[in-house]
């Protein structure tokens, strides 16, 4: 049987998944999945919607039980030692599940109380987090009065209140403006070496910026793993070009898709992106385009998005 090799890292592993499968009736969300995450590192699980990322996070945070296989967090089994795991982890879920009948601060206080923190400890910590995430002046507001970005920051603050050893971040910066995103990324980076971060995202830039190790997942299975640089190397054997045409972009895309030397192609914001199997094929490609339609053609470095496109033939957000 072809099983993905667990990543081998020198530090003790904080998160271990061994041949985990999760099925909902006939639908298999995660198939025979294995990985190891070393302590103090940032791990990224990259994949499109429905790839199985959230199911894996739910298993690791003890919300779901695996159908088969084993998983542990902080050395504790996810099925047997749920309470021990939950005292070690902080979770930023995909949805902003804030309590809309409690103020921003009260949301954080409730979380702290559940972690049995004393008022002197949690008040100090909450003040620091609200200040860090620029929410101090909105702490008495109820979540519906906060913008989407503020709510997201509040969810991140809530996950950090008890200073967890391991953080699970399920698309943590969705809906944030670039400035807030950068603020949170910098904070996550500051935790490197001290805390373990398990991040799911479909933002290539986020994975590239934060993660020490990445697994690309699709349809519940690993399709590639390694560092961001290693993954990009996988795309090095292809040549990436962006083509802008004045009109008929979709028609040209269909034409390109029939060409034998095209490895992958897609339409992104009206721009055709192609990867060629051979470097010398560019001339043959350009011949397909009416010179009057051609606006611009440029080459570029492969990104993690290209890796996914090359491996699956689809874009992450399709």
């Amino acid at each position: 049987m072809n099983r993905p090799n667990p990543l081998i890292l020198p530090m003790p592993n904080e998160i271990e998944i061994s041949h985990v499968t999760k099925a909902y009736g006939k639908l298999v969300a995660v198939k025979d999945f294995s990985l190891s995450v070393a302590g103090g590192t940032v791990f990224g699980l990259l994949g499109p919607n429905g790839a199985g990322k959230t199911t894996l996070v739910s298993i690791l945070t003890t919300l779901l039980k695996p159908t088969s296989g084993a998983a542990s967090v902080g050395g504790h089994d996810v099925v047997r030692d749920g309470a021990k795991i939950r005292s070690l982890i902080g979770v930023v879920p995909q949805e902003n599940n804030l309590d809309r009948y409690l103020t921003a601060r009260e949301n954080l206080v409730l979380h702290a109380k559940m972690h049995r923190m004393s008022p002197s400890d949690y008040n100090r910590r909450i003040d620091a987090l609200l200040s860090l995430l620029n929410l101090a002046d909105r702490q008495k507001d109820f979540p519906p009065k906060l913008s989407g970005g503020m709510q997201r920051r509040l969810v991140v603050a809530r996950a950090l209140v008890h200073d967890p050893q391991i953080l699970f971040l399920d698309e943590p910066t969705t809906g944030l403006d670039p400035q807030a995103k950068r603020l949170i990324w910098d904070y996550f980076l500051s935790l490197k070496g001290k805390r373990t971060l398990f991040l799911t995202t479909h933002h290539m830039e986020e994975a590239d910026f934060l993660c020490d190790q990445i697994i690309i997942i699709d349809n519940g299975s690993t399709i590639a793993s390694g560092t961001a640089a290693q993954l990009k190397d996988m795309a090095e054997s292809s040549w990436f070009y962006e083509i802008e045409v004045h009109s008929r972009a979709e028609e040209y895309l269909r034409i390109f898709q029939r060409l034998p030397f095209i490895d992958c192609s897609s339409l992104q914001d009206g721009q055709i992106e192609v990867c060629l199997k051979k470097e010398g094929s560019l001339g043959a490609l350009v011949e397909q385009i009416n010179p009057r339609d051609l606006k611009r053609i440029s080459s570029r470095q492969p990104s993690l998005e290209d890796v996914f496109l090359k491996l699956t033939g689809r874009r992450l957000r399709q």
Partner: protein
Amino acid sequence: MMHGSLCIWQRDMRVLQRNISSEAATVMAFPLTFFLTFGLGLKGYIQDIDGISYALFVVPGLISMTAILGAFDDGSWGMWFHRVVQKTIEEYRVNPITVTDIIVGKIISGFTSGFLKGLSVGVCLLLLTGFQFNPLFLLAYLLFIFLGCIVFSCLGSLAGTLIDKPENLGRLEAVVVMPFIFLAGLFFPLSTYPDSVLPYIKALPTTALFDGARLALLTGKIDPVYLAELLLSAAISFILAVRFFEKKMHA
């Protein structure tokens, strides 16, 4: 164990306290309307029941109804809202508390809310009518209300756990809970039922509550069968609420 229940109960009481004025207006409106209509409006047309004026006859039932509807609503809509809409149950579940803590916390919240609502309507109706009760009778009456609130908070939490669509939750209240309340002799004595039907009516936990509570308040008598029926209902509904919630969460 139970630390999580306490956190959730404190949260729910904070929210209840914050909304106290709007809650009070809503809670008072329903039983006061019934009292004005049946207790005062129709009292001239209805003769005394077992020597008790009709207005006095309906008051204990109206208080009980407010209490158990409060407990049921808080249990059912509270659980449903936190589970389906707000998804705060999911947030609670990634904290170091147990699933049992969560459901017990919600049941205690439903119970507290119902009990407080019943008490506030009771005070209001007693002031309005000027009826005076023996304090010991009142304690016996509160025992029934206490148990009734536990039963209906558990049943509400169970409904909020199992039912995903809000319209079905509304239907359950309209088609099951309200008929059970009205059938239990809220507005008329059970002696009006035919003998063939009466045993079934008496088997309803709502009858044990409404008839038992009225008997306790007006005469000071605690019917042991009614009390046992309520205790059993409370135990069964608690076990069902906890088991089904645990099952749903661990599915």
